[in-house]
């Protein structure tokens, strides 16, 4: 729900990628309000479970059902999670904040008001750095973060002329994170959401599960000719994946450009994203002009945070994606790209670090990114579901580093470890995959190949690049186990090239 009270302004000075219209180029301006469900056991103001998935109205207390005389009592952990998130967004923590009632009638809002924070949110201004493909990065301003209650769910398809109301979600704690309109394209919007999600997941304050609705984005889109003031925005509700965010922005920007270029005017309105059609459409139920009549909730006192408590939370913050990325580049010598890929999920970064510990970090990064992530992607598995443990992956890297196996053999070992499991060292041992480092044996194999191909020898002497053919033959003859470098050196020496 739109709650921004401060004047909206963008902190971006540069012009984003432009969209071609009939009357010239257009710039799209995007800001987001992300509702992130606080990872907690119980609800924000009641002791009912916040867990997803239960029979109708089972995770509901009398408070959540707004029975007469019921009163809210705040969950301290939810406040802590909001503060933690604020700190992770490098934002100002407001030591005094106020819970307000936002009044409107809707069947899934039992009290007839949502407890939210209006003029005095718990978290003030912050920033999120978003890395874009191609090495560019942008700063997205965070306007505020406030705590509020989730609403229940209305089911419209169970009965011909009734909607069914389930209050299991009602009262679950949400953090509404409002960005400035600092995003300039669908890619940027999706990248911002991805980065925000990573930060929340690093912090452990939200699981970021968009399918279950733990993270939902309302996307504010407007268009303008570059350099002109901000245009009228539309708020698109219910955008539940990175892909949909990108789709919604692209569709909405194009729609608005078409409307304006067709001589029309954009009305500030709430629109719904239809993920099946990839379209946005006006929301009928929100047509009525709202007047939320915010006022401080008299059932709650101002939320006052002690600085020592905030400092304690600050001291307990985990390393966040940006810091981790810098450290990976600095300590492991990784490229920006590799570091960026590895830190995108905390679990991936942890996995990599376990693999890299005491080993060749760049080699480790290569194997984790190319072999492991490639394979996980292909099989649509998360890092947590990887059949190859970090320990096993590390063992493979060690086997390559100490020359026990070649990179090529290592791929076979990885394949075996992936499909059958087992300790890579034992696999190498058992299957006799160890690299041949006995120079006598390699020399014999080289001699044999040279002796068998006198013509090729002559050709190679004239054209030294053909030495590679001999190396290949030797490798074949040794079942790939010969040390390729040693074979290469020996072949060149014997051929005299």
């Amino acid at each position, binding site marked *: 729900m739109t709650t921004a009270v401060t004047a909206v302004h963008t902190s971006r000075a540069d012009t984003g990628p432009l969209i071609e219209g009939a009357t010239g180029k257009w710039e799209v301006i995007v800001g987001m309000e992300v509702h992130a469900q606080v990872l907690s*056991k119980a609800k924000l103001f009641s002791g009912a479970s916040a867990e997803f998935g239960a029979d*109708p109205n089972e995770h509901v*207390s009398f408070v959540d059902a707004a029975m007469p005389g019921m009163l809210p009592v705040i969950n*301290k952990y939810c406040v802590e999670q909001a503060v933690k998130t604020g700190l992770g967004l490098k934002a100002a923590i407001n030591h005094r904040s106020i819970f307000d009632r936002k009044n409107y009638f809707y069947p899934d809002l039992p009290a007839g008001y949502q407890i939210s924070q209006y003029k005095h949110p718990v978290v003030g201004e912050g920033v999120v750095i978003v890395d874009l493909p191609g090495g560019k990065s942008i700063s997205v301003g965070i306007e505020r973060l406030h705590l509020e209650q989730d609403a229940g769910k209305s089911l419209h398809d169970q009965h011909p002329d009734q*909607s069914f109301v*389930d209050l299991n979600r009602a009262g679950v704690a949400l953090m509404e994170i409002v960005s400035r309109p600092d995003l300039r394209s669908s890619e940027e919007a999706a990248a911002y959401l991805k980065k925000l999600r990573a930060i929340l997941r690093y912090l452990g304050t939200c699981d970021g599960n968009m399918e279950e609705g733990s993270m939902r984005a309302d996307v504010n889109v407007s268009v303008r000719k570059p350099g002109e003031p901000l245009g009228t925005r539309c708020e698109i509700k219910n955008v539940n994946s990175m892909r949909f965010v990108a789709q919604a922005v692209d569709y909405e920007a194009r729609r608005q450009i078409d409307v304006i270029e067709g001589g029309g005017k954009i009305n500030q309105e709430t629109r719904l994203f239809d993920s099946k059609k990839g379209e946005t459409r006006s929301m009928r139920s929100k047509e009525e002009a709202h007047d939320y009549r915010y006022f401080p909730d008299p059932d*709650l006192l101002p939320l006052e945070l002690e600085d020592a408590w905030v400092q304690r939370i600050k001291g307990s913050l985990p390393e966040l994606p940006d810091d981790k990325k810098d450290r990976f580049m600095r300590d492991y010598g990784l490229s920006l790209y590799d570091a960026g890929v590895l830190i995108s999920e905390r679990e991936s970064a942890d996995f990599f670090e376990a693999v890299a510990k005491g080993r060749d970090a760049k080699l480790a990064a290569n194997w984790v990114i190319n072999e492991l992530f490639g394979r996980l992607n292909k099989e649509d598995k998360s890092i947590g579901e990887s059949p190859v443990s970090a320990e096993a992956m590390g063992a493979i890297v060690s086997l390559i580093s100490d020359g026990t196996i070649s990179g090529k053999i290592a791929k076979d070992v990885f394949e075996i470890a992936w499909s059958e499991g087992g300790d890579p060292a034992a696999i190498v041992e058992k299957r006799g995959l160890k690299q041949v480092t006995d120079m006598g044996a390699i020399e014999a194999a080289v001699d044999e190949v040279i002796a068998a191909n006198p013509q090729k020898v002559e050709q190679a002497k004239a054209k030294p690049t053909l030495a590679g053919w001999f190396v290949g033959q030797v490798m074949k003859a040794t079942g790939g186990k010969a040390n390729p470098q040693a074979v290469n050196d020996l072949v060149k020496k014997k051929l005299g090239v």
Partner: protein
Amino acid sequence: MSVDKNTVKRVARLARIALPEERLAPMADELNAILKWVEQLNEVDTSKVEPMTSVVKVSLKMRDDVVTDGERAGDVVKNAPLGEDNYFAVPKVVE
């Protein structure tokens, strides 16, 4: 500030109370009488006064994050005028 019939209509709509046409004007009169009376507060200069946010001078108490409630849908829906399978039922809402 004076309230007219249209304002009463709008406010009644916001408050979700059906007011028949013939009650709009009398209600406007009643509200105006009350509003005129409360506007005597304007005699007081409050420009340097903080609004009261809580009568009790204590800090907000907080609970621990423990599940202590729920799992009694039967009680929750027991008083509902209409419902099915522990859902509340309302006239169909169109979005």
